[in-house]
């Protein structure tokens, strides 16, 4: 029962994040949405781990946490560079690399 609730919450969080990622134009908010999606995935792992009584879920959560921290540190560096170069945070403005 608890698992179902947790999974529903995870799906909702994931969709929220996805919609945010696709609709927001400010790159900082896009990063925020990405974090929400990562947390949704972690929640699903935790739920799975508690459902089967396995430590794997928690281990994956730790991995995702590490990954998110690394990702944020890199992404924030890129955001800094972008705002410095383009004087804006609008993601649609950074469209110079097209085919």
């Amino acid at each position: 029962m608890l698992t179902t609730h947790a999974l529903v919450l995870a799906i909702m969080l994931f969709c929220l994040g996805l919609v945010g990622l696709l609709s927001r134009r400010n790159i900082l908010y896009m990063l925020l949405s990405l974090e929400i999606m990562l947390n949704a995935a972690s929640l699903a792992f935790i739920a799975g781990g508690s459902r089967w009584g396995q430590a794997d879920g928690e281990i994956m959560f730790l991995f995702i946490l590490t990954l998110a921290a690394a990702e944020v540190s890199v992404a924030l560096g890129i955001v800094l560079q972008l705002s410095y170069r383009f004087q804006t945070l609008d993601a649609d403005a950074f469209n110079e690399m097209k085919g």
Partner: protein
Amino acid sequence: MLRLLSLIPTLPLAGFLVLALFGGRFSRRQIAWVGCGSIGTAALITALVGADFLRVFPDRTSYHQTLWTWIDTSGMTVGVSWYLDALSLLMVAVVTGIGFLIHLYSVEYMSGDDGYARFFAYMNLFVTAMLTLVLADNLLLLYLGWEGVGLCSYLLIGFWYREPEYGAAAQKAFIVTRIGDTAFAVGLFILFTQLKSLSIQQVQTLAADAWPVGSNVAVIVAVLLLAGAVGKSAQLPLQVWLPDAMAGPTPVSALIHAATMVTAGVYLIARMHQLFALAPTVLEAVAVIGLLTLLLAACSALVQRDIKRVLAYSTMSQIGYMFLALGVGAWSAALFHFLTHSCFKALLFLAAGSVIHSLGHEQDIFRMGGLRRQLPLTFWTFLIGAAAMSGVPFITSGFYSKDWILWSAWSSPLSHRWIWFGALLGTLLTGLYSFRLIFRVFFGEVRTSPNGTPGVAMLVPLVVLAFFAVTVGFLELPRTLGDLSLFSQYLSHVLPPIETIPGMDESVEALVQIAVTCSALLGMGLAAVLFLPRASVADRLAGTSLGRTLAAFWQGGWGFDRMYDGVLVRPWLHLTRESGELLDRGYESLGVAAESFHVWLSRTQTGHVRWYAATVAVGALVLLGLFAM
């Protein structure tokens, strides 16, 4: 001592590697020592191994040595392993012994050439490949050697690569023999898929158990192997490459295109005799091919102007005799003729080389003459070689081997009378063209004076080979003349005995011998009548219109080159030119399609990161949907 066997092919290989890697830094003396020494040592080891083998010979008839496993996959194990028996020992002895003499000869013959190290490197590689061919225990290793000698033949025919026509001759030799080799490979595939083995001994016992005599599979495999042998041994219809192969240096012609490589086909058929025995029709075809080749080549040899081309055609003709002998089931007679032929033909080529060398690379016999006094030793050795080739009775080896073949062609149940008559005509032609060479080159008036005489390194091989060209025949004497059967006893553990029709006694044999002798002597006498007088009869004959057409036809090798050019080469070139447009359009449309697909795909590359995120999300959904289904 037998364990030294693996050194025999290894030493020439080491010689090749040393010369190929460091040949440029060596002095000529060092190159000669390495190139000659490796073969000389191999010949010495062959003598040791041979002595050890013969010491316990009738009790142990074969020796097997596995060095390592070459290929080991499911269902197929091929080892690098040698198989020594009476047949392969004979071949190894000829390859290393005559090979050494020819290398020694080359030390002086090639001394003025820029590619000295390259020459000896190729020659050593050739000897390695040839030894692999004859010592191989399985057909795949044999095929490796088979292709190796083909490669070396190509490299050495095109040795003087600055002449475009020499390069063309090399390519011709390579491509024409490749036709036979491909058939050979297909034959091996069939053998392996049918019998699951490639070991030469095993495959034949399996074949004899599995296939009845005259069964389709046996015939197909035998035909394919025969095609390989025909290509390598320059028999009809793949004989066109050998005359052009004379573009190579003369020692190459002596070693590869007379004594060893071109007889590989004979070796192959003798080696696989149990398989050929399962296909009597193919065996008959072998005899007919041999007969046709020996007559056609003998006629062509009569009218050539180039001394080496005469010898090339005579080689084809003599190998025709060997094929004929194999075809009538006279296995050991074929091998005996191989032995005598490799002695006297190597001798003839080396003597011809000594003439060419002394005359400053003159090869046209119509510009030679009267060299008997200037080059006495060359004359005498050439005379011995020519006498052996035409079968001067009692004293030359060629007489005994050819007589044996003719006697088998008469007395074998597999033979026909007309085969014997054809072969008899061949002996007449052999005498005619051999002594035409003698009379043209060494008699008559002097046309070109030699500038110098050959030195010791060239004369020693001539004398040694002349000695063998005479004496090697005494290993096997017919019943009517001494009755000695050393050679056939030696080979009797490998090859089946020659069958004879009942009622063929000594008196019949004597009659056949008299016929052969008369025919050969008639040929030589005819040559003396035709070519010896100053205003020679032959010139008058060649002047008539019939004589001119016939001479031109024979000189071009019976129009085979022109026929292949017209039937195969030209239509093929035409076809490629015509269909080229169409094919090109097909490939161009492929390019156009790729380009438009690229334009369409590159439009999705918008540069908007949110668009990418959306496509990733949709893609993930699609994949999930696919997995859910």
